[in-house]
């Protein structure tokens, strides 16, 4: 579905991504992990057109994404959430989600002046769908609150609902459970499984190993801008390179007189 082909991105002298090759098949949940600063978010920025790659190409369902604008790419069926939440803070939860329906409303920019029948029915439909999405993430009771007044974790859920509203085929999640506690994570895990079961392909970045390993069939590890491992959760968990660079050693855990909360 998505193919990154020898993708590189440099910032000045900083080589953030180097020759990344990655293929994500349709369906399922795919994970990308790696140390802080490895370049994971940058991968998402390249896919969604926010940054142009220094070299290499990105293909989505056979189409080259080079030179496309972010809104174009969204319309092709890619949606994302942000690591440092970017909601429309002064808008209500409902409006936030309704913005996501933008491209699906069938009345034109100026045509809306003329006909009111189509306008009304389309708006009504969008509103109902938005309510539904909010109830998926259990925020429907706050639908008319301002997004800014949500706590951190609630904001993450709203962002997820908003992304779903664009009707994506591929959903990119940048650390969806950061700032949630374990039981909330479990809840969201169920939710994401449901979403995936509805036919969305999911590609997520996450540092919470319990979450990633619990959800993803397939995980890639990025380190210093290069893919250093790829495989099933079990394979990744036991990859010495990944342990060295990312997971940390068991002894470290032991020295914390604990049994690894994150693993």
């Amino acid at each position: 579905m998505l193919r990154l082909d020898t993708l590189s991105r440099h910032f000045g002298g900083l080589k953030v991504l180097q020759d990344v090759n990655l293929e994500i098949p349709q369906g399922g949940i795919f994970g990308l992990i790696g140390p802080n600063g490895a370049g994971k978010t940058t991968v998402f920025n390249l896919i969604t057109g926010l940054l142009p790659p220094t070299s290499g190409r990105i293909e989505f369902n056979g189409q080259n994404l080079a030179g496309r604008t972010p809104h174009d790419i969204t319309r092709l069926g890619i949606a994302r959430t942000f690591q440092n939440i970017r909601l429309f803070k002064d808008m209500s939860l409902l409006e936030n989600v309704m913005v996501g329906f933008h491209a699906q409303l069938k009345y034109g920019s100026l045509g809306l002046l003329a006909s009111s029948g189509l306008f009304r029915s389309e708006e009504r439909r969008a509103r109902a769908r938005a309510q539904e999405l909010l109830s998926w993430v259990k925020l429907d009771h706050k639908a008319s609150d301002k997004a800014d007044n949500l706590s951190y974790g609630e904001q993450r859920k709203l962002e997820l609902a908003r992304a779903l509203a664009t009707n994506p085929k591929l959903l990119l999640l940048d650390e969806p459970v950061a700032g949630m506690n374990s039981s909330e994570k479990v809840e969201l895990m169920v939710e994401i499984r449901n979403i995936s079961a509805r036919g969305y392909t999911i590609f997520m970045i996450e540092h919470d190993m319990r979450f990633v390993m619990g959800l993803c069939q397939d995980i890639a590890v990025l380190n210093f801008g290069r893919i250093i491992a790829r495989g099933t959760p079990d394979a990744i968990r036991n990859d010495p390179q990944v342990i060295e660079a990312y997971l940390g050693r068991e002894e470290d855990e032991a020295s914390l007189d604990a049994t690894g909360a994150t693993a």
Partner: protein
Amino acid sequence: MDWFNNFWSIYSNLVLSLGTNALLALSIYLTLACGMLSIANAAFMGIGAYTSALLTMNYGAPFPAVLAAGMAAPALMAFIIGKPTLRLSGVYLAMATLAFGEVVRIALLNAESITGGALGLNGIPQLTQWWHVALALVLTLALLWRLRRSRVGRAFESIKEDETAAGLMGIDVGAYKMLAFVLGAAIAGLAGALNAHLTFFIGPGEYGFDRAVDILTMAILGGISNLTGPVIGAVILTLLPELLRAFKDFRGVVNGFILVLIVLFLPKGIWDPARFRQWFGKRGGRI
């Protein structure tokens, strides 16, 4: 009816200025609603005013056509400069549009053979009737009201809040910004055309920095969270100097004080529904 005739003969101009000023405030509201601090509206007003006045004076064109041209010319201009300009954000956009306004003003000053330079255009026929202004205002309000409640309005608002995120919602950010800019220019041009045919005279000095700031002040002071705000702001800013005539030499000082006090005590603008709800709804804990 007598008192009305009397009232009208004294205040007709003032009332009609309320209308044209409200149009101007709405024109900048449109760009502000999209997160753009564009203050080219004074210049667009000028382009509309000159275009229409010249058409009337030199070609005797029919008034509706004149008004249409007064909207089209600035809209076209906005379209041309919009592409490169709208990439700018915040105060930089403000400055670029201000610079554009200066260039327009100086062009009007220098194109003496057409515009009369600093002496302006005199003897413009007074064609604007009260119902022209009223109709223009009502139509503009209806248009903007409809836009607000639609996907276009939501697109504007989301762009204002976060352009990047808006783009990733499938919104063509550039196109919508352009739409707001061009539409704003057309409304400002309409106000200019109506005003030109009301006051017999137009000159380049009217469309400079002061006017740009005035327009912005009307919108912000009134409040830009909805359509009522700019209209109220325009009404207050236009009426205030008249109401304060009694203060004679200290009129300006009092006027300034009132401005500051309004801003201090109503920091979201005069028309702030959230505050109204707070006042009239149940009162919760203090902040």
